[in-house]
C-alpha cells in the first residue's frame, strides 16, 4: 500500500491530537451529524431497504466466491470492446504500469477522477518521481492536493476543512498549479466553486491523458461505472485521448442487472441522495467518441490475501459509501487522519490491516479503534459485520495465527507489546474458572476498600485521568446472597 502514511503514530496517539483540536472536532461533528440525519431520511423512503441490503450482500458474496471466473470474463469483455487489461499484483507494479502507459503517450501530465485505488497505491507520488504531474479534479481532492494535505474521508476527502480554510488554500496555492484564484475570493460556497471551476477548466481542455478508478465493473460487457456529484469526473473520462482506469479486483459485478441494487443503495448511503447526479459508464473504445485508447489496470494489492480469510473477506464487499464513517462516534472525534490510511473510519479499521498486514504499530492499533458499538454494521448497505471483523483482527494482533500473505499460507506471530495484557487476560480467565479464587480476590478487595487510591497506576491511568473510579462495595453480591440465603431475610 502507499508509503504516504508510513511513520504514523499508533491510532490512540494520533487520535489524542485530534480530540484536542476544537476546530477539527467542530468541522467533523457538523459534517457527520448533517449527513447522518439526511441518510437516515433517504433510507427510510425505501420500503424494501432490508431486501436491497441483503441483495447487495448476496451479489457481492457470490462474486467474491467466483472472483477468478468473473475476472477472466471481464478481461475478455474489455478486450473485445477494444480495451487493454493489465494485471497488477501490488502497488509498485500498478504504478509502474500506469507510468509506462503515460510515457508512451509522450505526455507529462494527467487529469484524475477521484479514485481511492490510486490513493491507496500512492500513484500521484509515483508519477511525480517519473516526471509526470497528476492533477486532481474532484473538488475535495483538489483542496487536499493544493493544501499538501491527506484525505480524511472516503467520500469527502476534505471533510476536516471549513470554508475559511479552503479559501486560504485556494488563495495561496492555486497559482503554483495553474490558474490562480481571484484576488477577492470570499469563503461563500458559490465563489469557492467558481474559482475551482475556472482553475480546473484549463486542465480539462489541455489534458490528453485521464486516470480514473471505478465504482463498479460489469463482467458481462466489460463496462466500468463511476458515480459522482460534480461532473468533473465525466470530463476526465470523456475528454482525454487516453483513459487509464485503476480498479481493485473486488469492484466487479457479474451483470448489468446487479447494478440496479447498488445504484439505489450507494447514493442513499453516501450522499443521502435518491440518485447521484452523474453516473458515467464506459465500455472499451468507440470510434470518434471519447478516448481512443482505454487501459484497465486490475489491482490486487492484498485483496486475494483478504479473500482467503473466512471472517475478514466480508470487508471486500465494501462499495465505499462511507456511511460507517458518518455514524462512527470514534471517527467523529478522532478524525480521518488518525487512521493512517486512505481508508479511515470503521471500514478502514478492518480493511487496512488486511491489505497491509498488522506488522506496523499503526496497523496493529487499528482493530482497537472502535468501541464495538455496532452503529457501522447497522448502516452498512452490504451488511459487513464490522465489529465481528474487528474482533477477529484483534485476535490476530494479540495471539497471531494462520493468515495468507502474497498467496502463501503463513502463521503470524503476535504483534509486539501485548505480553503483559496477554498474561493478565490469562490470569483473569484462570480466576474466572475458579470461583473460590475469584471470591477470595473480591473479599480482599472489599476489605481493603478504604485504602484504594482514586487514581490508578500503569495502564489504568488512562481511565482515572478523566473519570472517577467507583467505590468498592463493602461486600460482593455473592456474599450477601449466601448471608441472606437468597434475600429471604433481607430487608
Amino acid at each position, binding site marked *: 500500500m502507499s508509503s504516504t502514511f508510513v511513520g504514523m503514530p499508533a491510532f490512540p496517539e494520533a487520535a489524542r491530537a485530534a480530540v484536542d483540536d476544537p476546530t477539527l472536532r467542530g468541522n467533523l461533528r457538523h459534517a457527520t451529524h448533517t449527513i447522518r440525519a439526511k441518510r437516515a431520511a433517504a433510507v427510510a423512503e425505501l420500503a424494501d431497504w432490508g431486501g436491497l441490503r441483503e441483495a447487495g450482500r448476496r451479489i457481492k458474496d457470490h462474486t467474491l466466491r467466483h472472483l477468478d471466473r468473473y475476472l477472466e470474463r471481464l478481461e475478455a469483455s474489455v478486450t473485445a470492446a477494444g480495451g487493454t487489461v493489465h494485471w497488477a499484483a501490488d502497488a509498485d507494479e500498478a504504478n509502474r504500469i500506469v507510468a509506462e502507459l503515460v510515457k508512451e503517450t509522450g505526455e507529462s501530465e494527467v487529469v484524475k477522477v477521484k479514485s481511492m485505488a490510486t490513493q491507496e497505491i500512492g500513484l500521484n507520488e509515483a508519477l511525480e518521481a517519473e516526471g509526470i504531474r497528476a492533477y486532481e479534479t474532484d473538488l475535495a481532492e483538489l483542496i487536499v492536493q493544493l493544501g499538501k494535505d491527506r484525505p480524511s474521508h472516503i467520500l469527502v476527502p476534505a471533510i476536516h476543512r471549513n470554508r475559511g480554510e479552503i479559501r486560504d488554500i485556494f488563495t495561496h496555492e492555486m497559482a503554483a498549479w495553474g490558474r490562480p484564484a481571484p484576488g477577492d475570493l470570499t469563503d461563500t460556497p458559490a465563489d469557492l466553486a467558481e474559482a475551482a471551476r475556472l482553475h480546473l477548466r484549463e486542465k480539462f481542455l489541455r489534458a490528453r491523458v485521464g486516470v480514473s478508478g471505478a465504482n463498479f465493473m460489469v463482467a458481462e460487457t466489460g463496462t466500468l461505472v463511476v458515480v459522482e456529484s460534480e461532473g468533473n469526473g465525466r470530463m476526465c473520462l470523456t475528454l482525454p485521448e487516453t483513459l487509464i482506469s485503476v480498479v481493485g479486483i473486488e469492484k466487479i459485478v457479474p451483470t448489468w442487472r446487479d447494478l440496479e441494487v447498488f445504484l439505489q443503495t450507494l447514493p442513499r448511503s453516501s450522499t443521502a441522495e435518491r440518485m447521484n447526479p452523474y453516473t458515467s459508464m464506459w465500455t472499451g473504445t468507440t470510434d470518434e467518441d471519447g478516448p481512443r485508447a482505454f487501459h484497465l489496470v486490475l489491482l490486487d494489492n492484498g485483496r486475494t490475501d483478504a479473500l482467503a480469510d473466512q471472517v475478514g473477506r466480508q470487508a471486500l464487499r465494501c462499495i465505499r459509501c462511507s456511511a460507517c464513517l458518518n455514524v462512527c462516534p470514534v471517527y467523529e472525534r478522532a478524525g480521518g487522519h488518525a487512521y493512517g490510511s486512505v481508508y479511515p473510519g470503521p471500514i478502514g479499521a478492518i480493511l487496512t490491516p488486511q491489505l497491509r498486514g498488522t506488522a506496523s504499530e499503526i496497523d496493529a492499533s487499528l482493530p482497537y479503534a472502535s*468501541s*464495538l458499538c*455496532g452503529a457501522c454494521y447497522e448502516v452498512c448497505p452490504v451488511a459487513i459485520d464490522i465489529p465481528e471483523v474487528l474482533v477477529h483482527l484483534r485476535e490476530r494482533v494479540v495471539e497471531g495465527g494462520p493468515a495468507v500473505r502474497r498467496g502463501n499460507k503463513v502463521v503470524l506471530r503476535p504483534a509486539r507489546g501485548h505480553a503483559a*495484557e496477554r498474561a493478565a487476560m490469562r490470569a483473569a*480467565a484462570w480466576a474466572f474458572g475458579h470461583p473460590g479464587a475469584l471470591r477470595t480476590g473480591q473479599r480482599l478487595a472489599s476489605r481493603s476498600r478504604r485504602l484504594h487510591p482514586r487514581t490508578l497506576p500503569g495502564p489504568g491511568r488512562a481511565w482515572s485521568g478523566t*473519570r*472517577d473510579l467507583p467505590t468498592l462495595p463493602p461486600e460482593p453480591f455473592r456474599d*450477601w446472597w449466601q448471608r441472606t440465603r*437468597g434475600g429471604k431475610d433481607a430487608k
Partner: protein
Amino acid sequence: MRVALFLTCVNDTLYPETGKAVVKLLTRLGVEVEFPMGQTCCGQAHYNTGYRHEAEPLARRFAEVFREYDAIVTPSGSCGAMVRELYPRMGERARAEGRGDSLARTVAPVVPRTYELTEFLVDVLGVTDVGAWYPHTVTYHPTCHGLRSLGLGDRPRRLLAAVRGLDLVELPGADECCGFGGTFAVKNAAVSAAMGTDKVRNAESTGADVLCAADNSCLMHIGGTMSRLKVDMRPVHLAEILAGTEEDPSL
C-alpha cells in the same frame, strides 16, 4: 419454571445493589430466583479484546452452571449479547478450525434461554407495569449491545413509562455510544473520554436528576465522567428503579 440470576462479574463485584434489586423485583412478581454460586464471567472482555481461546472455557463454564435452568436472567445487555450472539459464533469458529462440535453443542441449550432483564419482564412474564414507584426525573440511555445486538427496542422505555412518579425525559443523541467499550476505555482513553463527556453534556441538557441504563459498565463510565465533571446527576441501573415501591422505595 426454574429461573437463575446471571449477575455478571462486574455487578457481583462492584454493583451488588443491582443484583439485590433484581432479586427484590422478581420476587415481588412471584418469580423464585436462584443464584448459582458457580457463576463467574461470560468471557466478553476476553473475547472482545482478541482472546477468543481464553473465553472458550468461560463459555463452557457458563453453559454448565446454568444448564438446568429454564430461564437465565441478566441485568446486562452487554453480557446477555455475549451469550446470545457470540457463544454460537464461538462454537462455529471452533468447528471451522476443525475442533469439532463440542463447544457448539455445549453452549446451544443456554443460548435461547438467556434473557436480558427487560426482555424477561416484557416477553416472558408479560408485564410492563411492575408496580414500581420512583419520584424522579429520569433520562434513559439505551446501551449499544442492548440496542443493536439484542434489539431491546422500546421495552425499557415502556417499563419506565409505567413507573409511578417517574418523569421520563428524552436524551438527545440517545443511541450514540457513551464511549466505554470495555478495554476501549483504556486503549483509546482520549476518544473514550470525549465520547463520555458528550454523553454527560447531553444528559445534563435534559434537566433530569437521574440517568438510567440497563448496563452497569456503561454507567460506571458515564458516572465516573459525571463525577469528574461535577455534574449533579446520578447514574442508576434500570433494575434499581423498577425495584422501588412506595412502601420500600429505591434511593
